[in-house]
């Protein structure tokens, strides 16, 4: 316990003594994690948006005109038995016409010239969660197209596909940028610790001569690196929060009108903690890199 207190006290003393280098290391880690955090924030929000849209996804199965009522009943039974169908609602031709008139009262005259009701009957289907991914929806719809009595199967596939593609690219960008910036952060933290080691080389030599083991000398520097990383992580979270609030404020009324503001959320406590842990790991790895040199230098 006494040793642990000594290690932490030494680490804190190092941080206090080397304020400029500490500031640079914390700022670099904060910037790195903030850049990564922007992508993570976008990625998580768009992914949650995509998931939410997928859960709202309705597939419309249009019934062939002229299908007799038993045929419609057979199709309904087929759909009810399908494991991909969570819920379904039948919209008759008359209901479709009434809905059209209710939704577009000014354009209802367009239908008058077409004689009989041209709108087909349909089934509006909510898919089971396991069938909501783009591929699953496509496979399910293709399978159903050949069922008797089915005219067409329709859903807003392109839009969802595009959103999923964007989410995929964001995921790649977050991983790529995160890796590059993490390497930069590790390098800078390693240099900071190396500067500390250089500034304290005489002390380290004295510690060796009075019988300190390598680990006794190195542990405070490892703790220092981890502390710098956590501090960088905390600063990055503060920066991201500030930026997020500013973004929300700028989005303001137009965003609320479009219903966007309800879709964007800041990191959950768990993700924020993960960012702090990421900072800690970056700092720790950085100090391990520099302390390895110390081990190689001399026993």
């Amino acid at each position, binding site marked *: 316990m*006494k*040793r642990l207190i*000594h290690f932490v006290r030494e680490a804190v*003393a190092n941080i206090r*003594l080397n304020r400029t280098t500490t500031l640079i290391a914390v700022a670099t880690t904060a910037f790195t994690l903030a850049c990564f955090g922007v992508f993570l924030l976008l990625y998580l929000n768009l992914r949650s948006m995509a998931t939410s849209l997928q859960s709202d996804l309705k597939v419309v199965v249009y019934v062939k005109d002229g299908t007799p009522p038993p045929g419609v009943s057979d199709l309904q039974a087929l759909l009810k038995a399908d494991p991909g169908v969570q819920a379904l609602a039948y919209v008759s031709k008359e209901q479709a016409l009434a809905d059209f008139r209710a939704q577009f009262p000014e354009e209802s005259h367009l239908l008058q010239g077409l004689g009989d009701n041209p709108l087909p009957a349909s089934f509006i289907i909510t898919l089971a969660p396991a069938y909501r991914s783009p591929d699953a929806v496509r496979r399910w719809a293709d399978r159903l197209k050949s069922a008797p009595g089915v005219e067409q199967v329709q859903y807003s596939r392109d839009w969802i596909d595009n959103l999923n593609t964007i989410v995929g690219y964001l995921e790649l960008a977050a991983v790529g940028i995160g890796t590059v910036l993490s390497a930069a952060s590790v390098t800078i933290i390693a240099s900071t610790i190396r500067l500390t080691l250089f500034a304290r080389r*005489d*002390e380290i*030599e*004295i*510690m*060796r*001569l*009075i*019988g*300190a*083991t*390598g680990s*006794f000398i190195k542990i405070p520097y490892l703790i220092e690196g981890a502390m710098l990383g956590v501090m960088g992580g905390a600063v990055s979270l503060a920066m991201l929060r500030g930026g997020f609030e500013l973004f929300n404020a700028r989005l303001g009324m137009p965003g609320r009108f479009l219903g966007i503001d309800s879709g964007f959320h800041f990191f959950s406590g768990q993700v924020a903690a993960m960012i702090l842990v990421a900072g800690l790991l970056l700092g720790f790895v950085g100090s391990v890199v520099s302390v390895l040199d110390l081990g190689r230098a001399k*026993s």
Partner: protein
Amino acid sequence: MIQIFHVTKYYERRPALTDVNLQIEKGEFVLLMGPSGAGKTTLLKLLYCATPLDEGQILIQGRNVARLKPSAVPYLRRTMGVVFQDFKLLPKKSVYDNVALPLLVQGLPAFETRRKVMEALKAVGVDHRKESRPAMLSAGEQQRVCIARSIVNSPIILLADEPTGNMDAELAREIVELFKTINARGTTVLVATHNRQVIEQVGRRVVTLDQGKVVSDEGKGL
């Protein structure tokens, strides 16, 4: 206690020590004499593993120094106290913390550390300066702090490199008395010096080095 067989050490191909042989028994007080550049400091450095051996063997308490693994070196150093010529005190730590350092690295409990540090500081007469930083002390006081640090963990061997350099005669006499007291408690003491006054005051075994070679070994067994 310390056995040195045919030891040779080179610095950039120039021999600092040549074929040195020496046996030091447990509890002996040995003075290592010789002019500057005779190899006294090099011999001490070889004993506390601060520089590698080129030829020969050194056994300390039966352990072959040349064959020690790097991870075992700190544990050998913990059995020794070293008084460095340039004191080697940590400038940002207090006198108390400097003296406590050898105990801290060994993981001694806090109460025991406090007791031993205060004992060591009292023994060298600088307990009243325990809160001071080394830079606030005179050279003599810094030397005493260095001695306190070297004896705080009750070493079995005490090595001192020119411990009375830059000191007036009276202070040098006090320091030598201190070493005699430490030796009287059973610690083997090896002091490198070129101060004749020290030799007269100690009146024990004197090994003289010149140009890296042992040229005389007088008073063995005294």
